[in-house]
């Protein structure tokens, strides 16, 4: 397994077990390398659309479907809380972890709360809708806006 793949795997497993992003120094310790090696890998992973970094180049903002910062899309699995980047990613966290989850979000217009139970085979019946404003061809132009 190449170094970038090892970094990616560590990032995702950190999110899965803690709900938060790892720092370069945390990963450097686990991978027996320097923090700058990890930061460089972060940069390459961002160019390959695996991660989205903050402007400092060393802080993870997104490892889709996980968000490193609180968002209106919260997912609870067991005792662990996660934040998703968007409505799609909220279901994506349940799909990625293969665990039953409860999605807490709200209506984009009215603010009405959404509580959606998601089992291993999918969400409970629901007539809520998903709307994406940005066409697929432009999703990565500004992923935060998307």
């Amino acid at each position, binding site marked *: 397994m190449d170094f970038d793949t090892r970094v990616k795997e560590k990032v995702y497993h950190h999110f899965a077990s803690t709900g938060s992003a790892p720092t370069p120094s945390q990963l450097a310790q686990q991978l027996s390398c320097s923090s700058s090696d990890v930061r460089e890998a972060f940069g390459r992973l961002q160019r390959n659309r695996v991660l989205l970094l903050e402007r400092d180049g060393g802080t993870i903002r997104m490892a889709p479907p996980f968000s490193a910062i609180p968002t209106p899309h919260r997912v609870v699995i067991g005792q662990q809380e996660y934040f998703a980047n968007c*409505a799609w990613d909220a*279901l*994506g966290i349940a*799909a*990625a972890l293969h665990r039953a989850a409860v999605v807490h979000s709200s209506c984009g217009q009215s603010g009405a709360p959404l509580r959606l139970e998601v089992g291993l085979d999918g969400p409970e019946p629901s007539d809520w809708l*998903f709307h994406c404003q940005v066409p*697929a061809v432009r999703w990565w132009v500004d992923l935060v806006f998307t």
Partner: protein
Amino acid sequence: MLFFRSEDLVDTWCEARGIERRPLVTIPQLWELAVAWYSTRLSAEARRPGPDEMRRIFARIGLDDPFWDPQADAFG
């Protein structure tokens, strides 16, 4: 990428921003997308779907509008 309680509320949201309403996605369709995109994300071999694979995924669940085409000229 937001949840909405109803189609009317999507329309209100779009009108308030002066933007066009896009194709709506049901919760079962959204689950299919979530599984297609993320069910292998924690494995070392995981990768994002490429353009052709994206088109196939969207078409399979009935999302065949050019809006979902990752290489559509109309939205480029």
